[in-house]
């Protein structure tokens, strides 16, 4: 009997611990800061939504307004899975309004102009909003027109895929890619010259389609080429080397220095430009190369939305063709307008246009914004953390996590090796990632 008593006491103890943990989690948010601050957030995507939820939990009486015309919220990390036939298109779709807390205002319009001196935002519908603090988190735009001969209605036909364009296009990408995995031929996988969302996704798509083709009808009669403008396969050297080895082992040919500029869908021909330096004259020489394909994955150049580029918030001397917001890389605060913060894809920082970065950026902006309302300085620092569950085949992934300094920063050191293709990393991507993302949206992770 004593044994049972102690077990029961133990159970009670565990329960009490759990309750304590719960109360600690809530306790940190119990004391709300009373304020009349007007906070405008441009964008109700991952970053805007997560921040709104966290601010509502921290502030009492603040006026929080989100501006975003998109009715659908997209779980973008799932697009790679949709484009490989592993998930249906609706796996990534939910409603923008589903995630927003009570007590915030959503204006379902596009932001048309920002005046950082007058501290106002104008919407497309003609509304004018004054703000005390502005968070710009509108995401980025895909510049499909930059690729001659390409348009989104081509996706899914004639061997053309473009998974970044959204859930329907990701599903159509799979239609085209599936044919390739059944019939074989030459598959070309590209990457743009600009900064981009989730730099791992072009590699994931390459790995997944190669894996599915190697098990499907195309087995033994297909060839995969990876063409990118960069000289490395990944921005973090140690990861780049690992990918190079995997590509080598899987006989995926790599073409560095190649930027996709045009396609001829009828002839199934892609044109790449490459810039080299003439060894004799030292002058820049641009040459073009044509490659025939049976499957082509297009990722267009990516830029900040027009409203950001027109508002004078962009860097003047960096990424001038792309327009990312000029902000401190550790606090995400605008360098010239301290009441403005950038979050997510639009932030002009060296790394991290991913949902994982957003997860780490949001608490930093929250800290500095709340501190600013109190007339203090925030202390939280964003060190460039981002993570990429690099899927290397259906069933395996590498859980790559890194920071601004190209250091690997594994969450589970000694347990889950970052550069090893593991089933457990795949399980995380499959099971836990979307759940963690959703918890982040609600401000709970």
């Amino acid at each position: 009997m004593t044994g049972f008593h102690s077990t029961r006491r133990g159970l009670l103890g565990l329960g009490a611990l759990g309750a304590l943990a719960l109360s600690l989690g809530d306790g940190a948010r119990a004391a709300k800061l009373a304020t009349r601050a007007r906070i405008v957030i441009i964008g109700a995507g991952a970053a805007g939504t997560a921040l709104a939820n966290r601010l509502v939990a921290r502030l009492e009486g603040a006026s929080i307004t989100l501006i975003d015309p998109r009715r659908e919220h997209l779980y973008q990390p799932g697009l790679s899975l949709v484009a490989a036939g592993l998930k249906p298109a609706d796996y990534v779709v939910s409603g923008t309004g589903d995630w927003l807390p009570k007590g915030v205002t959503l204006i379902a319009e596009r932001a048309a102009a920002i005046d950082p001196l007058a501290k106002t935002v104008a919407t497309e519908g003609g509304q004018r909003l004054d703000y005390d603090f502005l968070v710009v988190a509108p995401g980025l735009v895909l510049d499909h027109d930059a690729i001659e001969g390409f348009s989104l209605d081509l996706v899914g036909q004639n061997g053309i895929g473009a998974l970044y364009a959204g859930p329907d296009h990701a599903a159509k990408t799979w239609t085209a890619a599936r044919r390739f995995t059944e019939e074989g031929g030459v598959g070309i996988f590209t990457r743009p010259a600009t900064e981009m969302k989730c730099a791992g996704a072009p590699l994931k798509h390459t790995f997944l389609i190669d894996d599915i083709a190697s098990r499907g009808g195309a087995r033994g009669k297909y060839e995969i080429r990876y063409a990118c403008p960069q000289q490395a396969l990944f921005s973090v050297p140690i990861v780049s080397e690992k990918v190079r080895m995997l590509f080598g082992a899987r006989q995926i040919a790599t073409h560095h220095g190649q930027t996709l500029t045009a396609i001829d869908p009828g002839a199934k021909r892609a044109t790449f430009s490459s810039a080299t330096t003439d060894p004799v004259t030292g002058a820049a020489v641009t040459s073009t190369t044509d490659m025939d394909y049976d499957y082509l994955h297009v990722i267009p150049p990516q830029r900040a939305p027009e409203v950001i580029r027109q508002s004078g918030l962009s860097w003047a001397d960096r990424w001038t063709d792309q327009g990312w917001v000029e902000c401190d890389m550790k606090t995400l605060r605008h360098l010239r307008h301290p009441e403005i913060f950038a979050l997510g894809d639009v932030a002009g920082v060296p790394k991290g246009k991913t949902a994982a970065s957003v997860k780490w950026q949001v608490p930093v902006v929250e800290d500095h914004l709340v501190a600013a309302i109190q007339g203090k300085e925030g202390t939280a620092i964003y060190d460039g953390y981002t993570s990429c569950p690099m899927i290397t085949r259906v069933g395996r992934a590498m859980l790559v996590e890194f920071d601004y300094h190209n250091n690997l920063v594994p969450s589970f050191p000694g347990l889950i090796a970052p550069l090893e293709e593991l089933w457990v990393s795949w399980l995380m991507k499959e099971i836990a990632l979307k759940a963690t993302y959703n918890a982040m949206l609600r401000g709970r992770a």
Partner: protein
Amino acid sequence: MQDLTFTTLIAVFEEIFGRGLFWIMVAAAVLVTVAYLHVLIRDRAVSWRKFLWAQVAMPFGAIAAVLFVQVMTSSGFRDIGGPIDVIVLLAVAAIGAVGAAILVYTVQSLLRGGAAKP
């Protein structure tokens, strides 16, 4: 993972299964555990006959748990890539085995009433 607190973990699990299903599963697990403790306390002894059947159920529980995880995640045995994968696989199997054993033992005890002679 930034701050892997208990609340984060609960939030993640709620999102995986949906808030309703998650708490139903927690309730079911608690219920079976409590019922198990109940029959142990009631009978004041472990019935080795029931325990034998519970043991017979263990391999089935183990295999079912592994297959369930594999089917749910479009993966298979070929994806085992390192030691941690083997550990996770064994852990899944162990959880399935223990779960099945507790369930079978409890169901037997509840259905047959009082303790059989050990």
